[in-house]
């Protein structure tokens, strides 16, 4: 299939365009801020994200009329502090993103490397698996599994991890196939190195940079998908403050107070933008040029 035949790896260009480097650092900054908020935020923000206070429902943020610093970002429909929930939600997004990438990365890389390295029948099977996976409507299947088995944090990670491995496999396969033909691999083969040793010591380190770029993109995708699942009520279960879930809960009030969906939505957008910037910048800083 067309998207499976990646064009040959361009030689390392080495010259990163200045603007793209800027993107890399901006992305890294954004990701750093969110990670900091996720790690230390709950300790720094005094409010409890789960404490309801029905006398303080839908308090506006501090920059609007009637807002106060007691709740800088306002409160939601159950009186829970928005800032606290936002910060806790950062933790959820990042954990799900990382866990999904690790799971899908493992599956995809193993499949891609095996197919690319051994070729022949093994490669045919791997290609077939990738084609089948691409044909499946991912969001629908994820929703169906969570809907049938009940929403839970670990189930979301498992389902997304088992569904998002395709790009890892494609890139791992394409890069392995090119590395396989290079001189130093042939040299190692002639010297009698075992196949596993070649895989681990020659192939893997050289495809790692490409996989790192894919990892950032897949992490962004995983975070967006989890938000969509939670938005539809079939992702992370309440009262956990997943940003997607916060948007869903706020949906009923958005026509009267639009700011309720702005905060979690902006947070999601900025985080995913940051990760994408990081991935693009990584691709340029490392000097690789894959087709997107």
């Amino acid at each position: 299939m067309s998207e499976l035949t990646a064009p040959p790896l361009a030689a390392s260009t080495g010259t990163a365009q200045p603007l793209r480097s800027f993107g890399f650092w901006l992305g890294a900054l954004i990701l750093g801020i969110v990670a900091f908020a996720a790690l230390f935020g709950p300790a720094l923000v005094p409010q409890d994200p789960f404490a309801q206070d029905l006398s303080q429902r839908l308090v506006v943020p501090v920059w609007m009329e009637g807002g106060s610093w007691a709740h800088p970002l306002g409160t939601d429909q159950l009186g829970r502090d928005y800032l606290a929930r936002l910060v806790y939600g950062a933790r959820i997004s990042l954990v799900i993103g990382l866990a999904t990438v690790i799971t899908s990365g493992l599956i995809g890389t193993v499949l891609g490397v095996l197919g690319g390295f051994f070729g022949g029948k093994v490669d045919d099977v791997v290609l077939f698996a990738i084609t089948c996976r691409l044909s499946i409507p991912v969001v629908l299947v994820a929703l169906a599994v969570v809907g049938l088995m009940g929403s839970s944090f670990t189930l979301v990670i498992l389902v997304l991890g088992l569904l998002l491995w395709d790009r890892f496999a494609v890139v791992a396969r394409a890069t392995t196939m090119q590395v396989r033909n290079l001189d130093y691999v042939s040299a190692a083969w002639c010297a009698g190195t075992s196949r596993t040793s070649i895989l681990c010591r020659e192939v893997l380190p050289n495809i790692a940079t490409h996989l790192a770029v894919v990892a950032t993109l897949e992490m962004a995708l995983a975070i967006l998908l989890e938000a969509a699942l939670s938005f539809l009520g079939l992702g992370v279960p309440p009262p956990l403050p997943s940003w997607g879930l916060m948007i869903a809960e706020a949906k009923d009030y958005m026509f009267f107070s639009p700011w309720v969906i702005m905060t979690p939505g902006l947070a999601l957008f900025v985080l995913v933008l940051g990760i994408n910037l990081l991935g693009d910048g990584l691709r340029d800083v490392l000097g690789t040029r894959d087709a997107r």
Partner: protein
Amino acid sequence: MLTFLFRRLAVAILVAMTVLTLSFMLTRVSGDLAISIAGPNATQADVEAIRIAYGLDRPLVQQYLDWVQRAVRGDFGTSYFFRERVADLIAQRLPITLTLGLVGLSIALLVAIPLGTFAAVREGRWVDRVVMLVALVGQAMPSFWLGLLLMIELGLRLQWLPISGTGSWEHYVMPGIVLAFSAIPALMRLTRSGMIEALSSDYIRTARAKGLSRLSILGKHALRNAAIPVVSIAAVQLGFMLGGSIVIETVFALHGVGFLAWESISKNDFPVVQAVVLVLALIYIALTLFADLLNAALDPRLRGP
């Protein structure tokens, strides 16, 4: 060309059979279906009765073979909730989803191809940077959030467009825009890189040396060659849009196939869920088959050994 066609068709059929199996396994993954259908207040006798009534007491292999035999003939069973034939339900809702997908794709192509071309012609200058920024923004935007924002702005504040349901073509504009947003980045990038490559090639140099006008070079020569990957990606993006329509349809209350799937998941209506997954996958398989054949027809180098 004929061998290529047969080989691709054979692969497509194999993939379809695999998806058939996967869609069956999908609904059996939660364990005991009878308990889910019976609900939380059912007694053991109720569960047993349901199990026999829906044929869930037969061995799994037999249920699977039954599903395969009926599915290839287009019989997807009966919906537990709607009490209609699933095939009918899907046939009713599919036109809405397809319309939505085509509207989204049209908007995406109308925006992505000119912008991508523009960026390629002015590669490295600020136009290029702005266009790439648009691509980044489009990639990062959560679709459901964009949908809600558009609803508030265009629907409520400015009263330009209706915010839900399907009545007229206006109902498809906002959902179409949201869908397009997800496809524009990929299409734009591809057009841009394809045009950059085409513009630096020999035949373009010849065309310039011959003294052809800039527009003629862009339109007739460069775009035609850059179009090949764009066509196949467009088909793939359409497939993704149809598969991912469930979110948009739920936000804008469009009663398409995606919305049907969401309703059925919430109601544990397994036959419908199974069938929708299968149908959407089959559409995607057909689209990619079409895209591959089109590509092979346009570029003989792709037909394989």
